């Protein structure tokens, strides 16, 4: 048992922390999210230069072969800075999917281009009207004249605004299980509707009408890879939440010390002090579960992995809600303005809670594991 980072991980953390401090101040972020594209290629390249894109890619695929703990280190720092570049959508998710769900030949070159930061690939999974469903897909694929085509509507695709390639989950005809497809964004039959998310990240709804698609891996055998990738996303989000919550807590405690009412700092009031302690409690319990989730991504038993991931997402999701809401409350009126960073942390934490399974969804999944035990 050991809770320390390796020397390499500590160095990575340090490098990313410097990137956030130097290149991702709140003012710099304002400019980025106000731009036409809503994110910055320049910052994307800097992340690639640091090695963040190559990190989760296996060495045999041209990457650095990092594990869940490495991802945790990166995501925590991205959370601190509220980074909007689509690292989760266009690195963590596609790398996990391709590594688990595509053959050597299929992923050759593609992972290398993701690792270098030159290719952007997004995962179009959530069917319109299906909430957090992982298996019962509405999007259909058919095979005719020696090729697949897919039809369906995917929503809230992270990085879907800019990706040139899409990994799409769909069921072929009457198959019981899902398959995974590669689709060119500019192919005929693909229409995308990009938009900013509530937290200034970017995404898109994407509709497919008989869009040409290439099957990855074996037909009707993609579910394990999909589950793995979505679990990886949950682990990454948990780490991102730790970074965002710890900053938000720090900002809030600082405000309690400086903001004066009735002639003294509001932090002299016990009701507010205890709230700040409870925020810290949520943060530290979540930190423990983010570690659990990071380590669980190396667990070969998928059921055990799922149990740990859902446990983390439940606890972190509850913490995101508490820490976010209370940070706003303790700031008072200024906390509900768009101008202050507090609101931006709150919005990101709220979206993390709503992404890839909310607390109820993961509590139910964890509960199922108790029946099996």
């Amino acid at each position, binding site marked *: *048992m*050991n*809770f*320390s*980072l390796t020397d390499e991980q500590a160095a990575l953390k340090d490098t990313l922390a410097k990137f956030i401090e130097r290149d991702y101040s709140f003012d710099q972020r304002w400019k980025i999210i106000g731009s036409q594209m809503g994110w910055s290629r320049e910052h994307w390249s800097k992340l690639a230069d640091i090695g963040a894109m190559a990190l989760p890619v296996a060495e045999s695929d041209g990457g650095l072969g990092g594990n869940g*703990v490495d991802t945790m280190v990166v995501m925590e720092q991205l959370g601190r800075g509220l980074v909007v570049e689509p690292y989760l959508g266009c690195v963590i998710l596609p790398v996990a999917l391709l590594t688990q769900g595509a053959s050597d030949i299929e992923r050759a070159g593609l992972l290398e281009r993701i690792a270098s930061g030159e290719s952007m690939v997004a995962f179009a999974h959530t069917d319109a009207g299906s909430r957090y469903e992982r298996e019962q897909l509405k999007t259909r694929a058919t095979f005719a004249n020696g090729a697949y085509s897919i039809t369906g509507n995917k929503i809230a695709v992270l990085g879907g605004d800019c990706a040139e390639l899409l990994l799409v989950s769909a069921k072929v005809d009457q198959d019981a299980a899902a398959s995974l497809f590669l689709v060119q964004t500019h192919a005929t039959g693909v229409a995308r509707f990009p938009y900013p998310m509530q937290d200034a990240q970017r995404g898109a709804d994407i509709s497919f009408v008989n869009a040409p698609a290439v099957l990855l891996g074996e037909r009707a055998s993609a579910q394990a890879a999909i589950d793995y990738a979505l679990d990886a996303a949950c682990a990454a989000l948990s780490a991102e939440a730790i970074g965002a919550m710890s900053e938000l807590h720090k900002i809030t*405690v600082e405000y*309690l*010390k400086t903001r004066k009412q009735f002639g003294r700092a509001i*932090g*002299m009031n*016990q009701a507010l*002090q*205890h709230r*700040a*302690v*409870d925020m*810290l*409690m949520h943060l*530290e*319990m*979540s*930190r*423990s*579960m983010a*570690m*659990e989730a*990071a*380590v669980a991504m190396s667990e070969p038993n998928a059921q055990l992995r799922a149990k740990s991931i859902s*446990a983390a997402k*439940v*606890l972190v999701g509850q913490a995101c809600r508490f820490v976010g809401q209370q940070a706003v409350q303790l700031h008072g009126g200024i906390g509900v303005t768009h101008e202050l960073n507090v609101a931006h942390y709150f919005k990101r934490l709220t979206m993390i809670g709503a992404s890839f399974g909310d607390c109820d969804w993961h*509590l*139910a999944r*964890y*509960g199922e594991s*108790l*029946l099996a*035990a």
Partner: protein
Amino acid sequence: MDLRYNDEQRAFAQEVREFTRANLDPSVAKKVLDGARLSREDYLGWHRALYKKGWVGAGWPTAFGGTGWNSTQQHIFDEVTADEGAPQLMPFGLRMVAPVIMAFGNKAQQDYYLPKILSGEHWWCQGYSEPGSGSDLASLKTKAERATDADGAHYIVNGQKTWTTLGQHADWIFCLVRTSTDGRQQEGISFLLIDMKSPGVTVRPIIMLDQEHEVNEVWFDNVRVPAENLIGEENKGWTYAKFLLSHERTGIAGVGRCKRIVKRLHHVAKQATAHGQPLIEDVRFRDRLAQVEIELRALEITLLRVLDAEREKRAPGPEASLLKIKGSEIQQTLTELTMMAAGPAALPYVREGEHEAQDVAWLSDEAYRYATGTYFNFRKTTIYGGSNEIQRNIVTQLVLGL
């Protein structure tokens, strides 16, 4: 980063488990697993078995006859023995007064008291709280006046202590007493060891809401205490008391005990039925169980983080100060859930031994017999050891700097 135990730690856990299975009286284990009240002999039987093995002083340095285990090994020991149904080793001697004697006592005190704590010859209790001073400990009034007569230097102690856990079993009590009223409250307190058999000591039971005798009032009426029973210097007792409080930070989370209760709860939830199916199938109950289990896992990892930092001699982060708050809350939730699982079987109050005499099936349902009493009893956990509100005040000051 690796959250699993390594091979060496797993082998140690196995060794502890095998020893416990071979040496723990099964009837005592059953009482513990059922949540029944234990007798003095129940506690001491297990204590003596560990003493023979050399495992009583889990947190003690080897120089004083301890095991020299690191903090992680101590946790493994606590966790495995709790899982097997071993009684908790009474902390008052082993984990409370002993570290103070080691750090601040003189050689004669160390030679006399420490071996008797290890062997179980002396059962200790804690004389801190008074009727007028709960969380505000430094306001204590029990008075010790120094005098000298033909038999030598001594203190005359007058006053009252309260909430004295298992004081009815104790041979000795360590007390905070007031030896001066000059200066700040904290500056006039001394740390005194008192033989419970001294003339003038009276122990009166306080019956708790579960109708059990767990705590006591201890009265001192002109009790003569030899001056050599003073620890360290007169009027420095507050320093020693604070040392004691900071010494026992990780055990109070009760992770091992909680894991045992969760296991039991799983068993119960599969046996009991609701809507014609096992209670565990009831999604409302299952969600509650899932929620507390997840919180317990978070607490456990948090505890392991603290232990890891201690083992590596790194200063623990803010998480250490949160263990008591979260641990006590989880303990309460678990006892409440166990009572909920019992449903209407939570209602009867059955006196010890009564069910055997009556031979009525529902009265002797062992899964539930102690569930409600334990729920009531465990309301204490967010009050004792510095109430959770006091804990939040401490975190406010020491961690948040507010």
